[in-house]
């Protein structure tokens, strides 16, 4: 099972490359191993490369320097992506809606429309989702950054263009402009304050929408 024991030079090269902080040349290895002949080192490297060719790590040479690295087919083990599906928070949804209806808009404009401050994290989340993008700067004092929606936004919401978004009259007809009750407003205030923290720490969002039945 353990195979034949490798000879001392092979073991020494193996250990040296394992412990090395950067790739090493044949000469450097030979020097380190007490002035070994380069040919012997090369032979050891060949043997090691063969040995490791089917294992979880392999010995590779890049621009004449040797190092161990994880086998490419196992690279997915080292960089794992854990995907989690999360519903957009209420604050983020509002910001997204405002951007969609008013684009391009600056953060100050978003805030003046929403009537509450918008945490930086909220815009970050929307950028991360790929739904908004920076769309240059507004040529006014301070040159604020302005935001606009992306094609991914239209895709995700099944819109062929922004004109598909219902207008104000349609919203009113659907009862969506009816004043919200005070209890909800209070809740809303809390939500905005806690916004940054909850988005940053990545906790599951409370699904704000489920609290409200569509009229």
């Amino acid at each position, binding site marked *: 099972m353990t195979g034949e024991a490798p000879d001392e030079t092979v073991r020494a090269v193996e*250990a040296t490359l*394992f*412990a*090395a*902080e*950067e790739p090493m040349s044949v000469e450097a290895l030979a020097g380190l191993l007490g002035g070994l002949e380069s040919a012997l080192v090369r032979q050891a490297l060949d043997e090691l490369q063969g040995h490791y060719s089917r294992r979880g790590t392999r010995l590779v040479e890049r621009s004449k320097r040797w*190092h*161990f*690295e*994880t086998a490419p087919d196992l690279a997915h*083990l*080292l*960089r*794992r*992506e*854990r*995907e*989690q*599906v*999360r*519903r*957009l928070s*209420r604050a*983020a*949804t*509002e910001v*997204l*809606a*405002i951007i*969609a*209806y008013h684009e391009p808009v600056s953060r100050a404009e978003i805030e003046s*429309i*929403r*009537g509450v401050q918008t945490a930086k994290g909220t815009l970050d*989340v929307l950028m*991360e*989702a790929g*739904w908004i993008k920076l769309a240059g700067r507004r040529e006014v004092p301070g040159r604020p950054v302005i935001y606009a929606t992306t094609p991914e936004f239209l895709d*995700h*919401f*099944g*819109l062929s263009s922004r004109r598909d*978004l*219902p207008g*104000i009259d349609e*919203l009113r007809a*659907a009862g*969506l*402009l*009816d*004043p*919200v009750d005070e209890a909800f*407003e209070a809740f*809303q205030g809390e939500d905005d304050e806690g916004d940054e923290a909850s988005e940053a720490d*990545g906790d599951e969002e409370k699904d704000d*929408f489920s609290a*409200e039945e*569509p009229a």
Partner: protein
Amino acid sequence: MNEDGLLFDAPVAHGTGDEWGGLASAPAQGESALYLELDGWEGPLNLLLDLARRQKVDLRQISILALVDQYLGYIQRAEALRLELAADYLVMAAWLAYLKSALLLPKEEQEDPSPEELALRLQLRLQRLGAMREAAARLMARDRLGRDIFLRGAPEGLRIDRKTHWTCDSFALIQAYGQVKARTAPRIYHVMDRPVMTLDSALDRVSAMLGVTLDWMDLRDFLPPHAEPRLRKSALASSFVAALELARLGKAEIAQEEIFGSMRIRRIVQ
């Protein structure tokens, strides 16, 4: 108390610790060598232990008396050299001097605890310290990570990238916009037109009616007879204020028999 053992102005830097040379393993080289090794000695027990080791005998068989002699002799020499002795050494020296005298005294005159007991305790302590010093030496002599044995020099590292997949549906989007609009839309307030009796008209009315008679009149008699309830309420309030005003001007007087009782008004004839 200074642990690092600068108890004496030793000429040698205190740097040999890691090598575990020190006194214990150094061959005895006579008096002159003694002082060079001072820096390895850190405290009373260590000193005793080192002295005991020099006798190259098992601690269990060592003569405590001989050991005590050496310690005291050593302290004396150090004093003669006017080296500064730390308190611990002197305390131990005093205690050992007492132990020595006790060991030399005839048995019958012993106090409690007996010197044998004290000597045994000392021996036990030295054994334990000796065991630990040996254990430390064996520990330090092991193949050590970063010196003899190495970990991978450049590990790729394992990382979990959390990727969040955000979702939202278009109803939520539109609803959110509607609510923003609803929340921030300018509000128009409509105030209903209500029938009221102004203070002026109440004043006119009350003065006119008071002019008709000199008798007391109930305030309620001044109200328009068939007014709807809301106008009546307004008229009552206005008429009351009008009555107060007339009283202030000295044109009328007001009487009320009891709290919440009916209020009567009468003209004052000037």
